[in-house]
C-alpha cells in the first residue's frame, strides 16, 4: 500500500476535543438552562404590528400599568413589530383566558391610539370574517339559498381581493376609499363605507397554550427523540454488527449534545419546529457515518491481513470526499433557510446548521474510533 495521510492517527486529539466540547455543552445547558417556547411552558405569545411607530418603552409601561408586569416584550429589529410573551397561569383555559385577551386588545388600542367604535375593522379582518359581514347584510340581495354552508359567493371574491391587496401593500390601508376602490358593485361599496373603519394595529400571530397541555407536550417531545434514537440503534445493529452501532449512536449523542449546547449558548428558543430539527439531525447525521462504516465493512472482506486501524484509515480517506460533498449540499440549503427563510424558520434552521457541521466532523473523527475501541477491547479475543 502506498503511503497515505494518517487521519485516523489524529483520533486521540479529536476525541479529547470532543469530550471537552461535550463537557462544556453539558455545563452550558445545566447552568443557562434550555429556554423553552410557549408550547412547552404554557402561556401566550403575541406578534403585533403597528401602523405608526411605537416606542418599546411605552409599550412596556402600558403593559405594566395594566397588571402584566411579567410580560416579556421584544421588538423585531428594524420593524414596527413586537413579540409579547406572557407566562401562563392555571385556569387560563377557561373563560378567564378570554378576559386576558380582551385586556391585551385594550392595551394595543391605547398604544396605537385606535378609536373604539363598533364598526368593522378593515385592517384586521381576514377573508371569512369580511365575507360573513357582507353575507349577513347581503347588500346585493342574493338569494339566500345560494349562500348556505360552503357555497362560494361574490362576497367571498370581494373579501379575498381586499385582503390580498392589503397584504401586498404592507398590511394596512391608509384610507377606506383605497380599499373600496377594489369593489366594483356600488351597493357593496356603500354598505362597506358605512360599516367599516381602519384600525391602527394588527395581530400577526397569537398562540396560547394551557399549562396542562404544555407539560404533556414536553414529555412527548423528549419521548419522541429518545424513541427515535432507540429505533435507529436497533436498525443500525440489524444492518451492521453491534460494535458499529455503538460507534454510530455515540456519535449521535455527541452531535445532539454539542448542538444543544450551542443552541442554549446562542439563546435560541426551544419550540415545536426545533424538535423537528433535532430529530432531523438524529436521522441525517448518521448518513455520513453509515457511508464510512459501509466502506470499512466492504474493505474488511477484501483485505484480511491488514491491521484494523489501517483499514479504518483507508476507508475514511476513500469516502472523505463524499462525506464532505453530501454535507455541503445540505448545508447550502440550510444556510439559505437561515438567512432568507424568514423569522419563523430561523429558529428551526439554527440547530440544523450546527448539527450538520458537528455531524460531519463526528462521522470522520468520532464514530470510527469508538468502533475501533469497542472492537479492540471486546471482540479481539475471538
Amino acid at each position, binding site marked *: 500500500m502506498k503511503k497515505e495521510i494518517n487521519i485516523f492517527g489524529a483520533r486521540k486529539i479529536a476525541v479529547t476535543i470532543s469530550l471537552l466540547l461535550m463537557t462544556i455543552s453539558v455545563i452550558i445547558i445545566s447552568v443557562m438552562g434550555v429556554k423553552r417556547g410557549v408550547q412547552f411552558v404554557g402561556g401566550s405569545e403575541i*406578534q403585533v404590528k403597528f401602523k405608526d411607530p411605537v416606542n418599546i418603552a411605552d409599550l412596556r409601561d402600558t403593559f405594566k400599568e395594566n397588571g402584566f408586569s411579567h410580560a416579556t416584550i421584544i421588538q423585531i429589529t428594524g420593524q414596527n413589530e413586537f413579540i409579547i410573551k406572557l407566562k401562563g397561569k392555571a385556569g387560563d*383555559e*377557561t*373563560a378567564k383566558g*378570554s378576559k386576558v385577551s380582551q385586556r391585551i386588545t385594550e392595551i394595543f388600542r391605547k398604544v396605537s391610539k385606535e378609536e373604539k367604535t363598533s364598526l368593522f375593522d378593515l385592517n*384586521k379582518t*381576514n*377573508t*371569512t370574517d369580511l*365575507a*360573513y359581514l357582507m353575507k349577513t347584510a347581503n347588500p346585493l340581495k342574493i*338569494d*339566500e*339559498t345560494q*349562500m*348556505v*354552508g*360552503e357555497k362560494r359567493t361574490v362576497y367571498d371574491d370581494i373579501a379575498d381581493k381586499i385582503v*390580498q391587496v392589503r*397584504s401586498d401593500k404592507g*398590511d394596512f390601508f391608509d384610507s377606506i376609499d383605497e380599499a373600496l376602490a377594489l369593489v366594483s358593485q356600488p351597493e357593496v361599496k356603500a354598505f362597506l363605507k358605512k360599516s367599516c373603519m381602519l384600525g391602527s394595529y*394588527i*395581530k*400577526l*400571530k*397569537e398562540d*396560547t397554550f*394551557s399549562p*396542562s*397541555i404544555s407539560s404533556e407536550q414536553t414529555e412527548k417531545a423528549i419521548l*419522541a427523540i429518545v424513541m427515535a434514537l432507540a429505533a*435507529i440503534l436497533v*436498525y443500525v445493529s440489524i444492518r451492521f454488527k453491534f460494535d458499529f452501532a455503538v460507534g454510530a449512536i455515540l456519535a449521535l449523542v455527541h452531535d445532539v449534545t454539542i448542538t444543544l449546547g450551542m443552541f442554549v449558548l446562542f439563546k435560541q428558543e426551544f419550540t*415545536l*419546529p426545533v*424538535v*423537528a430539527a433535532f*430529530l*432531523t439531525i438524529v*436521522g*441525517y447525521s*448518521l*448518513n455520513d457515518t453509515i*457511508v464510512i462504516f*459501509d466502506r470499512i465493512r*466492504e474493505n474488511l472482506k477484501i483485505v484480511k491481513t491488514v491491521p484494523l486501524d489501517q483499514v479504518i484509515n483507508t476507508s475514511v480517506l*476513500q*469516502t472523505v470526499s463524499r462525506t464532505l*460533498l*453530501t454535507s455541503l*449540499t445540505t448545508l*447550502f*440549503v440550510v444556510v439559505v*433557510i437561515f438567512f*432568507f*427563510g*424568514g423569522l*419563523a*424558520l430561523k429558529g428551526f434552521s439554527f440547530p*440544523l446548521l450546527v448539527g450538520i457541521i458537528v455531524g460531519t466532523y463526528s462521522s470522520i473523527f468520532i464514530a470510527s474510533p469508538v468502533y475501533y475501541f469497542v472492537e479492540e477491547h471486546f471482540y479481539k479475543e475471538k
Partner: protein
Amino acid sequence: MKFKILFVVLLTAGAVYYIYPLKEKINLGLDLQGGIHMVLQVEMKDAMTAELDNSKSNMESVLKDEKIDVTQVKAYPEKLEIMVSGVPADKVKKAEKVFDDYMSRFNVSDDGDGAYTLSLKSVAMKEIRKQAMRQALITIHNRVDAYGVSEPIIQRQGLESNRIVVELPGLDDPTRVKKSLSEPGWLEWRLLAAPNSFKSKADVLAAGNGKLPEGTALFPSEPRGKAGTVVWYLVKDRVELNGNDIKTARRSSDQFGSPNVAFTLNQAGVTKFSRVTTEHRGERLAIILDKKVVSAPSINEPINTPNAQITGHFTIDESEDLAIKLRSGALPAKMIFLEERTVGPSLGRDSIRKGVRAAAMGLIIVMIFMLFYYKVAGINADLALTLNMLYLLGGIAYFHATLTLPGIAGFILTIGMAVDANVLIFERIKEELRNGKTPKSAISAGFSKALSAVLDGNITTLIAALFLFQYGTGPVKGFAVTLSLGIIASLFTAIYVSRWFFDLRLELTPNVKKLSI
C-alpha cells in the same frame, strides 16, 4: 428500456396532472393561509355528575311513588356513586326491584342494614363519554356553520380521547369564536304559523305581498342531504318553550323498536307544555336550535307528564342527533381550551413568499454546484432533482397532505438531501473509473456498490421522520410528511431515473472512452 421510459414519463405526467394548477391542488396549513387552530377538552366530569344527579332524582321519585321511605339518598360525584341508606326491612325486596328496573346503568351492592351503594357501570361511563363527545362535536359544528367558514376541520383527536381539534381557516378573532362555542345553545319551541314548509324565502313573501304576516318569523331548516337543500318555516313570534325547560333528552324506541326521541321536562316545562299541547292539538311545533329548525313534530295528544316522545321516521343516528340538539339548549359538558393558535392573514402570505424564494435560491445553488462539480453527470443529477421536486409536490397533492411552514422547510431541506444519493453514486463511479474500469462497467459497479449506503442512510432519516409524524401536531406533522415523501422520491430518482439517464448516454455514444463526471 422502452418500458422504463414509459414508466418515468407516465409518473411525471401523473405528478404534473396532480399539481396543476398548483394554487388549487396544494392544501395550505393554517400557518400559511391564516386562521384559528384550537384544541378543546370536553370536561367529562361535568357529564358524569349530570348523569348522577339525574339518576338520583329519578330514583327518588320512583321510591316515593312506590312508598318506600328511605333515610337518605346521596350522590358522590367524585366516586361516581349513589348511596341509599335506611331502606325499611320489609321493603328490601321492593327496593331492590326498583334498582334493577330503573337503575340499570349502575352496579348495586348491598352494604347491609338496608344500605346500598350504586356505582356507575363502566359500560355506562363509556356511553356517557361517547354521548358527551358527540354532543360537543355537533354543537361546535352548528356554531361554526354560522360563520360560513369554508372547509372547517372539527374532529376528535384520536379515537378515545376527550379532545377535539377545531381548525377554522380565514377567521381572525379567537375570543369571539371561544365565546360562541362555550355558550349554551339557543333553543326555542314555537308553533308553526303555516302548516307546511316553503321551498324558498321568496315563496313566503309572495304569499304575503312581500311582507311576512303579522306576528310571525321565518326560519330556515338545517341543510339536508348532499345538495344542502334548505326549506323555510313560518313560525309564530311567541316562544312556547325554551332550552331551560328541558331537563334531558335521549334516543329511545317505541314498542315496535323503531327509534324515537324521549325527553323529560322540568316543572315549569310541564306546565307550559301541557297548555300548548292541549290548546293546539293537531298543530305543529317547530324546534329551533341556533336559528335553524331542526324538527317540526305535530302535536298528537295533550301531554301533562314530565316525560314525552317525538316519533317519526328516524334512523338511530337521526334520533340520537335530535336528542343531542334538544339537550344542547341547557349547558352541555363544559369545554376548556387547551391550545389556541391564530395566524393573521398577512403572516402566512409573507411566509409563503419567503419560503418560495428560499426554495428557489436553494435549488439554483445546488444545481449550479452539481453542474460545476460533476460536469455532464451534473445534468443527470439536476434532472433527477427537478423530477424529484415534481414528484414530491405530486405526492403532497395526491395524499391531500397539508403544506405548513415547517413543511416548506422540509421541502427546501429535501433539495439539499436529495442530491446526496447522487453524490454517493457518482463518487463511487469516479472511484471505479480510477481503478481502470470502462465507463459502462464503472457505472454499473457504481450504482450497485453505493446502493447499500444510500439505502441505509436514507432509511435512518425516514425512521426519525416517522417518529416525528407520530409525535407532532399540525405544522410539525407537515414537516415529517414532506421530508418522508422527499426521501422516498429522491431514492427513486437517484437510483432509478438517474441510472436511466446514464444508460441513455451510453446508448447514444456506445464507444465512449471517457465519462464526464
